[in-house]
């Protein structure tokens, strides 16, 4: 029997194809006609035929009501889409066997998305079931506790069936969507449960409810999303992944679905993917300003932190926010929706109005939480995913033979022998192993510069600026200096805190010194070095990998083009409340066996200091 179209909890039953519908015309007894030969043979035979026919007519089942072919076609398409995407749905189990949730594979080498609150109760390694009936080991990769997203990696194959990422901004209210996963942990055979519904709302904001979890810009659906569905995929009618299910509105009936479920939009997750892949604990962002709704529904800046990039770019109390990251802002919720989908450190455009005049700025988003709030292994919300509850009318569910009964579960998390090298513990990271790998990948971009191992002595490079001023940079342990044109003389003495020198550059001399250190001594020479994630360069440009280094109080972000791997520039910040010195490389040039900054720009805030064209370099051995 086909599952009813109207049913909301569709199990994976077979739907009979169309063929059975057409039997009625061919085999209906009353369509028998008596041929002339029959008549001639003898009326006795004919009469018997009529009696038998009438008997059949009386006893035959009533004709099947015709189903609109369009409906059957839609059903066929639906079944085909679901059968295709079901392979990418993951059933996630904690090591102790109780509790779990869902996930979805997004790449053939095994990366899969889920909710943070699912994986956090599972531990570093977990077991995952796919609809091929097999259980796979998986390791935690990166987590976003605020956004409730986690990235894990299934192990043992390089050809996992992966879902195609869709565009959640294209989703419209009224579209059909499918949620797949393991609600109530029903899928003991790992065949995911499918529920279907429409999109009930888009760009919905759900307040943090007692935890740090904030669901911004999510997709609201009336497809059933129950405990166990968390972390699983929301597909559109074409089978593209548009969301990760994770939350619902619950009220008087307890924690079961009552018509309103929420999925994290895939476009939000795309912003965080680079960071998640690198094993980090990612934080969300704040503008460094508070906004409120004014009388005419305008969103007005209430307060701006003076240390924030927004303040330095000119945003002040009373300014009206017109658009943020390209989206028009008509309410505080919409503002929070935009803010909620970006990792900290991203640069986004903001348009504000003051006294009738429009101003456009690019602001750097600050971390939302204090380091301590996120760095201590973040705890999941109070109520973890449910254990399978035996229902009074249902038979006892057969236990998965791989599950350990709860009381025998080992206290120490299990690390499978063959995979334990894939997990490396380090404070501040979900799994440092992956960050190490990303660092190695990105640092290959330095190979282009050549071998600087014996260039640890004094550096001197000369040339001319774009407005024809000759310049000489000197970087040595006696200090950092720049002579520019006729009268420009700038100096950073050694053994003194780094200065904004030349003034207004954000500390260009110190920035160049960071480059020298990176090229000659490598990342080990810094007190901290890690891969951050990927973002559009300066908020609008090409996607770049971001590497972070720290030396003393000086923090530098290095930008490598994701396509080519080449270094496009770097930002060095002397302090958190100062605009960093920004160096952007137009091209590297060859200088006797090495490559170095050929044509490059130095700027800070929104002011350009100079564009340099290096013509000669001298790098001493010591």
């Amino acid at each position, binding site marked *: 029997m086909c599952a009813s179209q109207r049913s909301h909890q569709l199990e994976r039953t077979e739907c009979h194809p169309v063929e059975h519908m057409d039997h009625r015309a061919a085999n209906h007894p009353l369509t028998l006609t008596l041929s002339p030969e029959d008549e001639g043979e003898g009326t006795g035979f004919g009469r018997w035929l009529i009696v038998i026919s009438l008997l059949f007519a009386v006893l035959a089942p009533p004709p099947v009501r015709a189903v609109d072919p369009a409906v059957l076609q839609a059903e066929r398409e639906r079944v085909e889409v679901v059968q295709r995407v079901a392979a990418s749905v993951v059933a996630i189990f904690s090591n102790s066997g109780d509790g779990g949730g869902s996930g979805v594979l997004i790449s053939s080498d095994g990366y899969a998305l889920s909710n943070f609150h699912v994986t956090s109760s599972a531990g570093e390694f977990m077991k995952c079931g796919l609809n091929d009936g097999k259980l796979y080991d998986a390791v935690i990769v990166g987590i976003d506790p605020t956004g409730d997203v986690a990235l894990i990696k299934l192990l043992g194959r390089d050809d996992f069936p992966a879902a195609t990422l869709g565009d959640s901004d294209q989703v419209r209210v*009224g579209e059909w969507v499918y949620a797949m996963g393991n609600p109530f942990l029903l899928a003991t055979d790992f065949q995911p449960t499918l529920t279907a519904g*429409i999109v009930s709302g888009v760009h*919905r904001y759900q307040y943090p409810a007692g935890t740090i979890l904030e669901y911004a810009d999510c997709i609201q659906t009336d497809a059933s999303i129950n405990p166990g569905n968390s972390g699983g995929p929301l597909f559109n*009618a074409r089978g593209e992944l548009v969301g990760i299910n994770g939350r619902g509105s619950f009220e008087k009936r307890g924690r079961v679905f*009552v018509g309103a479920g929420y999925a994290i939009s895939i476009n939000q997750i795309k912003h965080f993917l680079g960071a998640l892949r690198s094993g980090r604990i990612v934080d969300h962002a704040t503008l460094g300003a508070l906004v409120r709704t004014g009388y005419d529904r305008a969103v007005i800046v209430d307060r701006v932190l003076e240390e924030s990039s927004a303040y330095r770019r000119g945003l002040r109390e009373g300014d009206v926010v017109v658009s943020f990251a390209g989206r028009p802002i*008509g*309410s505080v919720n919409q503002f929070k929706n935009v803010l909620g989908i970006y990792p900290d450190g991203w640069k986004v455009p903001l348009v504000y109005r003051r006294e009738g005049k429009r101003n456009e700025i690019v602001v750097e988003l600050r971390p939302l939480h204090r380091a301590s709030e996120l760095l201590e292994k973040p705890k999941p919300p109070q109520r973890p995913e449910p254990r399978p509850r035996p229902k009074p009318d249902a038979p006892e569910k057969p236990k998965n033979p791989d599950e350990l009964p709860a009381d025998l579960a080992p206290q120490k998390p299990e690390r499978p022998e063959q995979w334990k090298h894939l997990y490396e513990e380090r404070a501040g990271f979900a799994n440092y192993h992956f960050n190490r790998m990303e660092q190695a990948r990105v640092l290959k971009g330095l190979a282009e510069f050549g071998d600087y191992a014996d260039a640890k002595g004094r550096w001197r490079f000369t040339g001319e600026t774009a407005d024809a001023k000759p310049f000489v940079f000197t970087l040595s342990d006696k200090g950092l200096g720049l002579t520019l044109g006729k009268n420009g003389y700038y100096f950073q003495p050694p053994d003194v805190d780094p200065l904004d020198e030349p003034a207004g550059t954000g500390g260009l001399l110190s920035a160049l010194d960071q480059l020298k250190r990176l090229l000659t001594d490598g990342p080990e020479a810094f007190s901290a070095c890690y891969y951050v994630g990927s973002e559009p360069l300066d908020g609008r440009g090409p996607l770049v990998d971001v590497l972070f280094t720290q030396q003393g109080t000086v923090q530098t972000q290095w930008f490598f083009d994701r396509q080519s791997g080449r270094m496009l520039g770097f930002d060095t910040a002397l302090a958190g409340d100062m605009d960093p010195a920004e160096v952007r490389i137009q091209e590297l040039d060859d200088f006797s066996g090495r490559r170095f900054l050929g044509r490059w720009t130095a700027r800070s805030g929104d002011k350009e200091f100079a564009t340099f064209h290096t013509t000669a370099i001298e790098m001493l051995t010591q």
Partner: protein
Amino acid sequence: MRSKESRSTRRFPRLRIGLVCALLLLGTSASAQSTVETIEDVAPRIVKIFGAGGRKGLHAYGSGFLVSPEGHIATVWSHILDGETVSVILHDGRRFDARILGADPQFDLAVLKIDAENLPHFDLQQPPPSVGVGTRVLAFSNVFKVATGDEPVTVMHGVIAAQTNLSARRGVFEAPYTGPVYIVDAVTNNSGAAGGALTTRDGKLLGMLGKELRNSATDTWLNYVVPIQQLRTPLEDIREGRYTPRPSTDDADATIAMRRYVPEDFGLVLIPDVVQRTPVYIDRVLPGSAAEKAGLRSDDLVLFVDDQLAPSSRVFREELAKREAGRPLKLVVRRDDRLITVDLPVPRKASENE
């Protein structure tokens, strides 16, 4: 039959199949498109209502829908309308202070009015489509107050699962409306949904989403909708100012058609209402009042109000609030182990304007 087929399709059966396929494809994509478009058309007619509540588990938000371009809004009669101000937020985020034009508690119906023009609305003059069990429907409301400002309200899908008469209760006593309703399989029984609109898949109004009620036979929460045919006459009556409470009062004042009584109007002071279901004990009786004259005393427990069970203080007050002047208020109280029935005359209450 043959003569009706066009020559070309008779000669080229492939063409006929092709046309059918083309029409089918158009049909499929057209119906998929039309739900999205229907919603874009209908959602702006739904309004978000905010009013009294927010304490003791009573939410302060609900839904309503526009029935005229100048701002008449149909919604449910509920505690949200109890307070001083009722705010209405339109689809574009504009906020209005709404007046309560009138209410008909028998239909759990209230009509609000905001001062606006050219608003998207449902045309009640349109005959409602004929529907039955299985008709696919859309439910529009601000359930769980998910939508704020200019965000569109929530849309759920479902079918009409049954057509029946309402037998429901809120807590333990009967709901006032016991007429025909649609039962739907969309979960409309949630806070904030009452007063929203049920439509067909192509946007024709079918009815108003009901309140959070339980089925008294099965003790399950009901997703019910009051058909628009039932509401049309009381709606029009209130709009036209024809609404008069039963029995009619001599006050011509039709601005607020409801007079709301409190126990003190009858001389009853009840014990403080501090728990979920505070029993209706009389704390004391005001001297010279109707209650004193009827012989009621402290520690009497009120059991029935007008033949309806009054299991809690809150329910008793709600019942009183809906009363109109005219026929006496019948109370059945328990004193020790006796049941005593009294009739209290209902005093004429000053209208809100005075």
